[in-house]
């Protein structure tokens, strides 16, 4: 199944691994921060609206 990459196997694989890791990190960090901020906003909204 794996294509024969010849003498450039390491070159191609390292480019793919580096890029995919960076893309996945970007998405995961964005989603984690998004969820954290949303939860904090809900908490503060409840507190402020409850007091007001």
């Amino acid at each position, binding site marked *: 199944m794996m294509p024969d990459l*010849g003498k450039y196997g390491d070159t191609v694989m390292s*480019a*793919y691994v580096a*890029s995919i890791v960076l893309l996945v990190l*970007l998405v995961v960090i964005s989603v984690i921060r998004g969820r954290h901020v949303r939860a904090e906003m809900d908490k503060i*909204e409840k507190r*402020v609206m409850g007091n007001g």
Partner: protein
Amino acid sequence: MSIWEYANPKKFITTTERVLPVLWAAAALCIGGGLIWGFFFTGDEVRQGSTVKIIYLHVPAAMLAINTWVMMLVTSLVWLVRRHHVSALAARAAAPVGLVMTLIALATGAIWGQPMWGTWWVWDPRLTSFLILFLFYLGYIALWEAIDDPDTAADLTSFLCLVGSVFALLSRYAVNFWNQGLHQGASIMRAEAVIGTDTQEKVSNIFFYPLLLCIIGFVLLFVALVFYRTGTEIRARRIKALMARERVEA
């Protein structure tokens, strides 16, 4: 219906949350499909061998590295002219995406360059302008983080974005301005190729179609990330406003 309706933060969030699941799924399908097609089902190129498979990551990332800055320029101008907070926050949300795309373009270019050019790096016009663009992204993100008042931060980063646009354009057209350096000229999006007067070498269709799918996937991923991250920035701004209100009432 006017585009300015989406300058309302609530309207922006409700609308984007409706389209986000479709965008995430379409981006994953296109990128996954394009990479599998390119990696497993296309052969080697005569001169580059299997390193040609790196274009499926390098080209879309490089395109987005430049176009993210163009998008930030447009939204920064909207902020400066019309003072819509959503546009300033969209520029802020897009910057880390552009930074990662520039980093991918630089890294994959260096990895490809080592066996093909015999060096990881040369001070070639396109490579150098991309490195400067990367530094501008870092500076832009740092400036947002360094200033507490969001309106002042939006003003200053918008001006930085205007200055940085020179390098974004330079990155795009560097290979046309100077006939020196190792980086080849544009071989995919060329006006001559579109109007049919092209005599220069271009990417073979065998490589072009999976590449096109990857480009579409990267654009969809960019839109999804910017929508999602802008929503996060809007909420973070609301948290600051609520906390300020709480302090006044206390």
